[in-house]
């Protein structure tokens, strides 16, 4: 059963490479994940760099996955994005210092 969310983003290091609005994550038996979503804004240079990380913010921090493959559909403006993600990275907690 997929996990669904609204706000997500793709980072290259500390750079924001893309903003996602509306996504679903499906976990496979081998621990990898499939990401489908709508890329509403992206940096044409940074989105083509590696390594990328998909980030799903939540109220206390962020869930993070490494991007293994990324397929940007053609065209201008918001577009569907399909990606395969590796095993989930350690959660980043930012809510409290």
């Amino acid at each position, binding site marked *: 059963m997929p996990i669904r969310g609204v706000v997500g983003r793709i980072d290259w290091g*500390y750079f924001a490479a893309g903003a996602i609005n509306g996504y679903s994550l499906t976990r496979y038996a081998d621990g990898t994940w499939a990401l489908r979503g709508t890329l509403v804004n992206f940096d044409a240079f940074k989105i083509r760099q590696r390594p990328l990380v998909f980030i799903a913010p939540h109220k206390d921090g962020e869930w993070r996955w490494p991007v293994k493959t990324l397929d940007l559909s053609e065209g201008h403006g918001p577009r569907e994005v399909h990606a395969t993600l590796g095993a989930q990275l350690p959660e980043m907690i930012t809510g409290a210092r």
Partner: protein
Amino acid sequence: MGASWFVRPETSRLLLSEGQWLLVKQRLTAGEFRAHMKRSSRMGDDGVRRLDFIDHHLSRIVAYLLDWSLEANIRGVSEQDLTATLDGLDPQRYVEISAAVEAHETAMTAAREEKKTTTPGETPSDPTSPSPSAPAPDLPSPNSAPLTSMSMPSLSR
């Protein structure tokens, strides 16, 4: 082959007093540097853009700073929110942070200059040599003012 002409998102941790630290970008991209120069300068009535040294220090911190160990969360905040947070610092702590970021920038610039050595066996090309089809560049005369950091306040529009 030399280092990449593009900036990778690499970071450095700068230590402050009392065990505090800053996480900063190692280098700025051209776009980040341009934004930094815009924030640091004002257009005069004469149409010449001049660097404002007070704003320049703040802008440099905004350009480089990614995170810190202080209690206020700045990770991923907007430029405006970061500026507001920095404005809330004790003035002496602000100066300490500004000095740390300036020292980092100076050190990174020096390290890059050091790397610009010629590969053994290669003859460096004369950077002032014109290409066959290009007109000779206008070089500054020996009496021109030297290009030092003091020339930075005056940026052409």
